[in-house]
């Protein structure tokens, strides 16, 4: 698996407009291509699903039942729906058909530069990441009521999923889809602030920032990275590292940041909103914090006789050949309901080893190592080839990582410009720092700064 695992469900969906690999089925003969794609997907999973019993699903029966529906499908889109239904029968994450569909296609590559979360059934702006969006009046903490005339309350009400967490994720995906649009377009947003006042905003959409990376069959992805120092009175320093995907292009930047923070009092790794990436990276990244090649977790597969093992690769030299110690201070990891896959594997592994404390909200619970494969149609099948358990035997699939320190996001805290997750983590990392909680809030960097650069303050300096 090129040590590939865990992948980009949400990101892939949101980048569907940029996805160039799909839709190759010619108008003529599409049905044969659709059938070949159905068969290819079924066979691939039949040979690689990590549980020979398919979790109790009659996989052969699924083929027998659904294949005739591809034969009688009226269009390629109908056939894709059948393939998606087949994948859904497994009830596991990381079984996806990456292709445009009637439900997941976005209308352009630009989006409103803001992060959203579904909190208690409401869509809340948690960060505003672009200057144009800020200029248009968008601020953190406001409830998002409508996007281009679509009421978010309807989206939340109609969201699909077996439980509240998965329904919230589905609603999040749908609202994010609506925030996308063509280059140069604007989104008509209706928001409600803490006082109950409704505002109509016209917010320009823009392309996501960051280095655009193309990897294999997956859609292009804008990889973003941020590192800064959070300095505190008393000479305490905390290093802050955030990245939105596990890709090697960011590995050297992470290593350089850890190197710079090596003598700090603590390090925060912010994996909120990070949907995963290449799982092999957890060996190298954990090696910045753990000095022994201990096991991070194990993966059961169909083909290997024994479970495969992810181990720490202690990073005791820099890329330029300097001998160093791994970081010995405290490590906090920030997660939320949009933290998925490799991010969950890393956070869960570090938590199980007692090397990090987890702050935030329970993660997606979609943590299966997966591969991709191009089907005859040109669509891409993502399929899991193993499960994953941490060093303590804990499975993350369907459960996710439960924070040691749960943090409830509130619109009020966000509106004040705070970052409750980071505040709580910093309080733990530098425990002797006895500042009032809301004093910290006021001094922390602007919440918009998670990826774009932002100015520091007199006491909390980012660099």
């Amino acid at each position, binding site marked *: *698996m*090129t*040590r590939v695992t865990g992948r980009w469900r949400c990101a892939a969906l949101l980048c569907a407009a940029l996805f160039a*690999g799909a839709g190759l089925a010619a108008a003529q003969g599409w049905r044969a291509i659709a059938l070949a794609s159905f068969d290819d997907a079924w066979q*691939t999973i039949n*040979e*690689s699903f990590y549980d020979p019993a398919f979790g109790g699903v009659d996989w052969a029966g699924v083929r027998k039942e659904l294949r005739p529906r591809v034969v009688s499908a009226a269009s390629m889109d109908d056939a894709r729906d059948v393939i998606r239904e087949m994948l859904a029968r497994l009830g596991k994450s990381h079984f996806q058909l990456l292709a445009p569909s009637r439900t997941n296609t976005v209308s352009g590559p630009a989006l409103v530069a803001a992060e959203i979360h579904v909190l208690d059934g409401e869509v809340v702006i948690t960060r505003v990441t672009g200057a144009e969006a800020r200029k248009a009046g968008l601020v953190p903490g406001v409830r998002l009521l409508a996007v281009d005339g679509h009421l978010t309350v309807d989206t939340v009400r109609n969201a699909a999923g077996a439980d509240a967490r998965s329904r919230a994720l589905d609603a999040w995906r749908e609202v994010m889809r609506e925030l996308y649009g063509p280059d140069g377009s604007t989104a008509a947003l209706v928001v409600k602030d803490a006082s109950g006042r409704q505002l109509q905003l016209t917010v320009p959409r823009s392309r996501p920032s960051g280095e655009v*990376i*193309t*990897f*294999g*069959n997956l859609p292009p992805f804008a990889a973003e990275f941020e590192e800064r120092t959070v300095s505190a009175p008393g000479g305490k320093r905390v290093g802050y590292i955030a990245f939105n995907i596990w*890709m*090697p*292009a960011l*590995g*050297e930047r992470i*290593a350089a940041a850890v190197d710079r923070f090596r003598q700090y009092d603590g390090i925060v790794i912010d994996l909120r909103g990070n949907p995963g990436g*290449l799982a*092999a*990276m957890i*060996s*190298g990244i954990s*090696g910045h914090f753990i000095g022994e090649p201990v096991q991070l977790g194990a*993966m059961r*597969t169909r*083909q*290997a*006789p*024994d*479970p*495969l*093992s*992810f*181990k720490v*690769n202690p*990073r*005791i*030299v*820099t*890329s*330029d*050949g*300097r*001998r160093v110690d791994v970081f010995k201070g405290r490590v906090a990891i920030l997660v939320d309901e949009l933290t998925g896959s490799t991010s969950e594997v890393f956070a869960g592994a570090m938590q199980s080893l007692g090397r990090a404390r987890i702050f935030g909200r329970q993660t997606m619970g979609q943590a299966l190592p997966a*591969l*991709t*494969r*191009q089907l005859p149609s040109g669509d891409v099948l993502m399929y899991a*080839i193993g499960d994953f358990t941490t060093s303590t035997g804990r499975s993350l699939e369907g459960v996710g990582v439960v924070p040691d320190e749960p943090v409830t996001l509130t619109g009020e805290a966000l509106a004040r410009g705070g970052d409750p997750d980071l505040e709580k983590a910093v309080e733990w990392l530098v425990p002797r720092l006895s500042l009032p909680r809301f004093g910290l809030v006021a001094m922390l960097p602007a919440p918009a700064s998670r990826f774009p650069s932002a100015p520091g303050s007199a006491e909390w300096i980012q660099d």
Partner: protein
Amino acid sequence: MIRRSPGRLSCALAVAFAVTQGVVPATQAQKLPTAREIVDRFVKASGGEAALQAIKSMRVKGTFSIVGQSLGGDLEMMSARPNKLLMRVSVPAIGMIEEGFDGKIGWSINPLEGPSLVTDRQLSERADEAWFDAELHKDDYIKEMSVVGRESLDKRDVYRVKVVTVRGNEQFELYDAENGLQVAVEASRDTPLGIVPSVVLMKDYQKFGAVLMPTRVVQRVLGQEHVFVTTSCEFDSVPANTFDLPPAIKALIKK
């Protein structure tokens, strides 16, 4: 041996295991040649022992791809007598992956995991992989070998030979019964993730200088097919310092 394929090393890159394909036991009871006869025939078909031993170093360039995954890159593999090896694979969006053996130390540098030393069984396998004259199957490389049977692989008759190296590593080598060429190697390999079965297929033999080499090597691992295609091969042009340890590896072994 002349390192003709990146197959074994690619296990470490691929972290994988392969699916045996199309190999079925022979049914006919006929007298089988000895393993030595099969290997000698292969050496002769490859250009002969003298031609193989005349080569002091080798540089192979080519491409690497994973079927169906739109992933690939460039490959460069250098080897030299008696047991030095350096392989570089450059993959877009990942970067340069390097694996080496300087006759004593096995190492890896890749952007996913950082620099690391190869130890224990992985080191033993790396040492075997680096053995320049491995294909000759001499006593300095082979502890024992025996013919297991004759069977069919991709509709061709092949001899299956079990080989155990002096370092204790075991593999099955398959030789074309008709033309004598080695067509596959099956083995379990130790990777950073653990033991994984691997099948390497050697195809499209072409002549480079006085020797025949496979120009298409397919490795089946983790349900994937990794394809290595040779685009050029040079002999005796690899500088001796090619195999010097990189600074990061030197720092790793510093006590």
